[in-house]
């Protein structure tokens, strides 16, 4: 899948492959140490942040957490 920034595609691909291995082989097996892909994530992030800025996407809107906060929707009481 493509990144929002064309120049980030290669970095994203490398990070995603690392993440998939980490998620299956480490995380789901109980190893929560996430340092394995951290260097790749860092460079990929720098690229994405830049691309978002260029496309005028407000990081503020994305940074707000909804899940697990007061913002999260709850089913209506029936």
């Amino acid at each position, binding site marked *: 899948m493509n990144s929002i920034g064309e120049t980030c595609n290669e970095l994203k691909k490398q990070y995603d492959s690392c993440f998939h291995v980490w998620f*299956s082989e480490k995380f789901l097996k109980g190893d929560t140490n996430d340092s394995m892909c951290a260097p790749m994530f860092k460079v990929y992030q720098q690229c994405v942040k830049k691309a978002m800025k260029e496309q005028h996407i407000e990081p503020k809107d994305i940074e707000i957490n909804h899940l697990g906060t007061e913002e999260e929707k709850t089913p209506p009481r029936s």
Partner: protein
Amino acid sequence: MVKYYENSTVFQFSWDQVARGFWHRYPNPHSSHVLSEDTISREVKDGKLYSKRLLTKTNRVPKWGERFVSKNIVKIVEESVVDPKEKTFTTYTRNLGYTKVMSVIEKVVYRVSEENPKWTVAVRSAWIDSHVFGFSRAIQAFGLDRFKKNCSKMSGGFNYVLAHMFPTTAQYMNPNLSQMGFADRMGEPSMTKLSHAAEDLQHSFHDKAEKMKDAAKKATDLAKKNAGPVYVACQPNQS
């Protein structure tokens, strides 16, 4: 007024397989409307994995929608929490921008099936809201109709990906389980469109105007009958 919908779907794959498959949903042959997918943040906290992703999709604006929406890309923020100990995978998606026109929030919780520990149940909740005067009811009603249709598409799509990732498990799937209809759908490209139901909805607001008016009318009639929260069953015959 916000419309609330919920349904549940059974996947004949283990929770671990579904969790792994989740990150591989895109791209697929039927996700041409999905333009990009980026991980914005990710961390492990208290043994759980917290991720936030930004998805962008094309936005085909219907004629009557042009007055509300001018840009042509929809942005969707997806938050998720994976708890490997409890075996729960929770996703929460919302659209960025146009929230006055239509805001669609979807929460899905994937957990191990109580019926069969080798299966996974996805419980899906959606909240659909619109503040466009005179249109909100039609848009919300359209939402109900579309949501019902998409639940079977969604499970068919996810199953398609899971079956390709885990062919050995797929061999033992029971195609007769009402919520699957999987064997039939494998050969039917239209049914393998891969998306979350509400994500599709977030996108489908921008679908063809005629189809939408028609669906909205039908669904308005239905919505009138169901003033309260609606439980939407995932019926295999819906296309």
